[in-house]
């Protein structure tokens, strides 16, 4: 009885819908996180509908107002509504968190798996390249790249993608080295499966838990790096808003008007945590071995 239930559970395909149902049924925390992320994304998309204020119009009379019914999260040093600026800033922060993480992970995973699987000179070249990237502090490298490319959102994407691939490549390579010695890879080879197929069918799927964890770790990193770059004047340019930029701008008023930092900071924290929990939950659900019986 128990085994048939386990079987029918496994028989479900990994469609988006079934993954979501399982997510909600088995892991509340991940489900809530997923809802939070969706909420943030919707808020970013529909920002103009959610607020009567403009994100750049300054009203110096209302400078540094504490949170009130009129200004939910208060106003900043130029009298702009913080809630409004956070809504618009989330567009930058979310994109900067997600897109470059995806790109750098895709690059890193492919290079890592290639290096690990084929070994030899290919491995040496790719890994020395990764060493070079890792040898520089990532912040410094990002700054140099941003300086060379100039500011702007697209260049921030490009920079973050180019900076973060190396550590992913390292980790995926190590994972591949381990996986390619496993017997199921050997038995795949024994039935005549060609190398590219072994990589994409047998090795990469087994790296997915690692990749998801890397992804969730990468997102907060990217959001924070973006905010540092913005602070140094190399990222998104003011008066455009991003959460990191807002935290940095509010620093000097922290003792008198803490809401300037508090709300954007909390937003960063919440989205980062949400991605972590979602990543954990997804990893559990996508890996058939970890499924609860």
């Amino acid at each position, binding site marked *: 009885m128990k085994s048939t239930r386990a*079987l029918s559970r496994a028989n479900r395909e990994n469609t988006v819908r079934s993954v979501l149902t399982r997510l909600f049924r088995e892991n509340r925390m991940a489900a809530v996180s997923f809802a939070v992320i969706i909420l943030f994304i919707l808020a970013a998309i529909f920002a103009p509908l959610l607020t009567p204020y403009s994100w750049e119009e300054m009203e110096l009379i209302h400078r540094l107002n504490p949170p009130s019914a009129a200004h939910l999260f208060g106003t900043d040093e130029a009298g702009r509504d913080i809630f409004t600026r956070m809504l618009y800033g989330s567009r930058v922060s979310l994109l900067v968190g997600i897109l470059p993480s995806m790109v750098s992970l895709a690059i890193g995973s492919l290079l890592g798996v290639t290096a690990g699987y084929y070994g030899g000179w290919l491995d040496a070249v790719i890994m020395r390249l990764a060493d070079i990237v890792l040898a520089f502090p990532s912040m410094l490298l990002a700054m140099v790249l941003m300086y060379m490319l100039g500011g702007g959102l697209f260049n921030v994407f490009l920079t973050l993608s180019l900076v973060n691939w190396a550590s992913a490549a390292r980790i995926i390579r190590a994972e591949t080295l381990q996986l390619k010695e496993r017997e199921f890879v050997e*038995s795949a080879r024994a039935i005549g499966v*060609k190398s590219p197929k072994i990589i994409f069918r047998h090795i990469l799927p087994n790296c997915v838990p690692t990749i998801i964890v890397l992804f969730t770790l990468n997102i907060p990193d990217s959001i924070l790096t973006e905010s540092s770059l913005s602070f140094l004047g190399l990222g998104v340019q003011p008066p455009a808003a991003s959460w990191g930029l807002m935290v940095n701008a509010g620093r000097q008023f922290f003792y008198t008007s803490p809401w300037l930092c508090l709300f954007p900071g909390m937003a960063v924290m919440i989205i980062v945590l949400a991605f972590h929990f979602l990543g954990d939950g997804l990893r559990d659900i996508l890996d058939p*071995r970890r499924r609860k019986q």
Partner: protein
Amino acid sequence: MADTVLEVSHLTVSIPMGKEVFPAISDVSFSVQSGKITGLVGESGCGKSMTARAIMGLLKPNCKITEGSILFDGKEISHASAKERCDLSGNQMSMIFQEPMTSLNPLMKVGRQVEEALRIHTKISAAEAEKKTVEIFREIGVPDPEKRLKAYPHELSGGLRQRVMIAMAMICRPKLLIADEPTTALDVIVEAQILSLMKQLCESGTGILLISHNPGVIAQVCDDVSIMYAGTIVEQADVYELFDHPMHPYTQGLFNAVHSLSEDRGELDVIPGTVPDITHRPSGCGFCTRCTQVKQQCESSFPVMHEPIDSHRVRCHLFDGKESHEHAH
């Protein structure tokens, strides 16, 4: 007379260790006939699996076939290219591994893994591949095949997983199946089932090379047997001849070390000592350090294969000059 599917002759595989190169297996010759099971017996580390890997082309990159030939279906394959290998493996020759627990991809449904071999080697639709998989599952005794098809490996028992492995290896009806200790990880009842399954498979025309460290397993199913020790084959005969008249001191010791229910012998006999390390193999006979009948020349000269009785070969100095008259000239 059955066709010879596999003819291994004078195969030598070398491993570099440090600056020197050591032969892991040397001068190994045997053949596998279609519709028959050939056994390869020996203790751990004697080169059984290495031989199997050499045949399948799965040697680690640092191991090299330095001498000898492997004829598969009359074609030399000891230095086949990766592409030729891909065409052969799974299609015409297949291998099943020792550990059914780890030999299946944990993230793929077993049905898809079995179909993979079929989809690679034949142009077949997904529906048809699934039908064939159900067929072979039924044939090798997987209960409820339609359902098992969609199970993940961790949901199956060891015996079932080994059956899945066999299905994977057999789905293209290969001419040669290499089974590397297929029952070592299984309990005795499942072992018996798997062995009778092997027997059944070979009756359908597949030649099987069965590797085992258990003479009991070999005695049950094999037609011909080769005994390996320290990288060489020390004795070779058909199964009845070998078990009735073991000639090599190692074979005799090996059989004495197996527990028998029919006679109560008290303590089991053991062969004193261990297999010599690959870097310290004696220049003479590999067994000379443990042999009870060791002679002077055993330590210095490597024994050649003798054939004291027709088609019963033994590599031992005790049989120097005792060729059967047919081969004496």
